[in-house]
């Protein structure tokens, strides 16, 4: 971990070595480790210490960027020179609004000393305790437990400086039993919420219940989606259409639908980078404080999230959702939600199941891909436990199914929302989502397992 003062000195060095009119510097660091297990043994156990400085310069409306993971003065000067050379070789970006003016994000606590101090031995003990459960139950467990500290900091030549250090612990496991499987996953910034053994036991129990699955034909069924599956639904809606660039280019599910009822009134989704019930980061990669943005309010789309460039195009202010603009792929993605919450309801999982006469209970989705953006049509597979519901009760396991489903239509037919939420990790943040009961979900293919 570098720490705020070392980062401040590093940024002063980097900004001082740039001769451009405007310069922006972003630091991303990760000091973490991951213990991986499979076949009831630890098979990969790794540690990583990485830091990266992203430099972006503007010469008028000409913009260039460079990235280095060497933090010595010569490397920072080389990066600044490369960024300037890139800007000089580039025509003007007509809608480049300049780097943001200074704003002061309120710090948010997301650092747990216990996570930062987690040792290889601690991770091994946690994993070994889980593997003992699996062995006792005749199951075979695989998965990963990671812990670490990340730092993100942003400064620019207009006076922006912000720094955040946070911890992150992520655990996931797939337990196998006689060819069937179960799953459990959680992410958090606090150590005490990550009960590896309890989660592992739930995956083992799910795997045992999923043994000897029966075949059912593809078709349209009512479903209860566990939060793992719901993260996929909400995640595609967020990444494929809740950023301003997608809306401005007309390829979002939101286009022409903002302000009108589109989804079930039980569906409310927002992004809040400051909520400690997520994995908070108080500012984006341009140094703009993160604002709470309601994306869907009781079924009505309210609008996307913005970065500085997409906001300027509409005469608005950034909502604090910029990706690292020095990354080439960020240009195509535009701003995106990263700390997503779906409002829980009042029903327990048993109550959600209890309202289904004949339908399916789905643990999670796998390998999902966007087929068509307008209605957020996605295809993918079920995985790690699918069950037939009969008369309001989970009756028996069934074989996995392929689905091809408009997630807009799925969220329009939500009839029940779970009271409990899971916090699940994502690349830049996390999702906290409940279980859902959906009236119609279309499965288009079957498997042999």
């Amino acid at each position, binding site marked *: 971990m570098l720490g705020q003062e070392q980062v401040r000195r590093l940024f002063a060095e980097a900004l001082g070595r740039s001769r451009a009119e405007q310069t922006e510097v972003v630091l991303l660091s990760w000091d973490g480790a991951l*213990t*991986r297990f*499979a*076949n*009831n*043994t*630890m*098979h*990969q*156990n*790794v*540690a*990583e210490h*990485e*830091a*990266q400085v992203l430099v972006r310069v503007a010469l008028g409306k000409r*913009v*260039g*960027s*460079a*990235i*280095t993971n060497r933090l010595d003065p010569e490397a920072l000067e*080389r990066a600044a020179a490369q960024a300037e*050379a*890139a800007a000089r*070789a*580039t*025509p003007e970006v007509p809608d480049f609004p300049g780097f943001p003016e200074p704003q002061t994000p309120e710090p948010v606590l997301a650092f747990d000393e216990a996570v930062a101090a987690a040792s*290889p*031995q601690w991770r*091994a*003990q946690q994993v*070994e305790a889980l*593997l003992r459960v699996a062995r006792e139950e005749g199951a075979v467990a*695989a*998965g*990963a437990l990671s812990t670490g500290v990340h730092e993100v900091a942003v400064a620019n030549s207009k006076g922006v400086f912000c720094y955040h250090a946070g911890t992150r612990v992520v655990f996931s496991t*797939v337990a196998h039993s006689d060819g069937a499987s179960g799953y459990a996953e959680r992410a958090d910034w606090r150590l005490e919420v990550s009960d590896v053994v309890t989660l592992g036991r739930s995956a083992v129990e799910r795997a045992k219940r999923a043994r000897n699955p029966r075949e059912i034909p593809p078709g349209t069924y009512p479903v209860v989606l566990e939060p793992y599956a719901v993260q996929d639904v909400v995640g595609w809606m967020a990444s494929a259409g809740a950023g301003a660039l997608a809306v401005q*280019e*007309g390829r979002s599910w939101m286009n022409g639908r903002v302000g009108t009822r589109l989804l079930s009134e039980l569906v409310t989704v927002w992004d809040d980078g400051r909520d400690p019930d997520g994995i908070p980061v108080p500012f984006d990669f341009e140094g703009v404080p993160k604002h709470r943005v309601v994306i869907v309010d009781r079924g009505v789309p309210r609008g996307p999230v913005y970065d500085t460039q997409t906001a300027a195009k509409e005469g608005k202010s950034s909502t604090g959702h910029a990706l690292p603009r*020095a*990354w*080439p792929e960020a*240009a*195509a993605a535009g701003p995106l939600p990263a700390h997503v919450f779906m409002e829980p309801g009042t029903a327990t999982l048993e109550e959600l199941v209890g309202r289904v006469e004949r339908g399916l209970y789905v643990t999670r989705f796998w*390998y999902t*891909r966007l*087929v*068509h953006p307008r209605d957020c*049509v996605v*295809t*993918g*597979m079920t*995985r790690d436990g699918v069950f037939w519901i009969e008369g309001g009760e989970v009756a028996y396991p069934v074989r996995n199914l392929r689905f*091809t*489903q408009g997630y807009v239509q799925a969220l329009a037919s939500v009839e029940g929302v779970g009271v409990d939420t899971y916090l699940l990790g994502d690349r830049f943040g996390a999702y906290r989502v409940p279980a859902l009961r959906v009236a119609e979900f*279309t499965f*288009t*293919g079957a498997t*042999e397992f």
Partner: protein
Amino acid sequence: MDELVARVLNAAQLAGAAYADVRVVETVRQAVVVRNGAVQGVNWTEDAGFGVRVVADGAWGFASSYRLDLEEAARVAQLAVQIARASALAKREDVDLGPPVVQRGSYRTPVDVDPFQVSLEAKVELLLRADEEMRRVRGVTTTEGELVFIRQRKTFASTEGSLLTQEIVESGCGIQATAVRDGEVQQRSYPNSVGRHQQTRGWEFVVEQDLVGNAPRVAEEAVALLSADPCPEEVTTLILGGSQVALQVHESCGHAIELDRVFGAEAGFAGTSFLTPDKLGNFRYGSEVVNITADATVPGGLGTFGWDDEGVPAQRVDIVREGLFVGYLTDRETARRLWKLLGPSPYVTGESNGTSRASGWNRIPMIRMTNVNLLPGTWKLEDLIADTDRGVFMDTNRSWSIDDRRLNFQFGCEIAWEIRNGKRTRMLRNPIYTGITPEFWRSCDAVCDATHWVVWGTPNCGKGEPMQVAHTGHGAAPARFRNVRVFGKG
């Protein structure tokens, strides 16, 4: 660098490692992204660090750092040993790497024109010209173009005595046009989708693709797709373009033959495989025209190198021979394990076939595809279409999904044409096909010849935790499949 490598190996052995290797990796990457007539990003990235892999107390440990100094070298080596000892708390058997591998030498990607010697201005101009050609077409709403150049220098050394240096150069390029009307969104890409096509070659690769010359067609097809009929739902004959065949090989064969995956190492994330060891040498994977190799020596492939990240030399091995499943991708540990499981046979040597690769200095090497190639057949594409009474020709991937055992797949393509009476007729939009891997490959009755064969680059292959994005290659030509279920948007 030699001093750092020596310090790592010494420190690891002093800390108790029975085996250690170190990779020092330095990468420079240049990318240019153009969007809607404006340069959205010109980026230069340098990245360096080292990773240390050890066996101590019979178990693996790995640690890595971006700090290339001697003090850090010793700290990271000792940390790797500490981690290995923690791993040993839950080991069931000792790591067995088989006989030592001792290799010395150097390898360099052959290039005609070093892409880093071509001016940035020339690269920007090329993309802007292609972008302008696309935007001339009425109805296009978004245009994109991308160039990527990578130079990676690697040093590998092990306590067994290997010392290797390699310089790998990659060049990639792509353009894409999107048209939107009345809620319909259509796109066309060239030479491939998901950003770009890429090879281990120099600037000459980009020149050969002729982005500017292809730009008008790409844009016109994107607009034409808005008015095209949806792909009808039917069971029919399917002809796939070469880049889609490459992806089909990647997903339904390449991942399924990773022996670590077969042994369950990826069960917690990417999944397992239907190609279990009992099928080796006796399972009919495809029809007799299906011949697949893993070939790290083919020129231009993204999986082409001198040695893998365990120091095992690049090689070509058979995976599917005349439809029969005959080989896996292996590393030192899994090759040994397979040999212990099955004993020696024409398909089991006990030695790695050189596919252990790490995505960077901060990642552990694992089995990754090299260039998994469908070997060319005998057909010309025109003859293949002429030989087809009724069917659909699909090209360029748009979406891909496959289950965690690599059996049930569904792929969408950007574009299709109906085939009637041996002729390519009306254009079809949102085409999708689905199937079960061995049934699909057994239904393959024709593969086009070497004149259609391209080593496609897949620079976005994900596997492992922490995630590793590998660059893999797939030689492929258009191919025909019978009795395939196709449909429209779903």
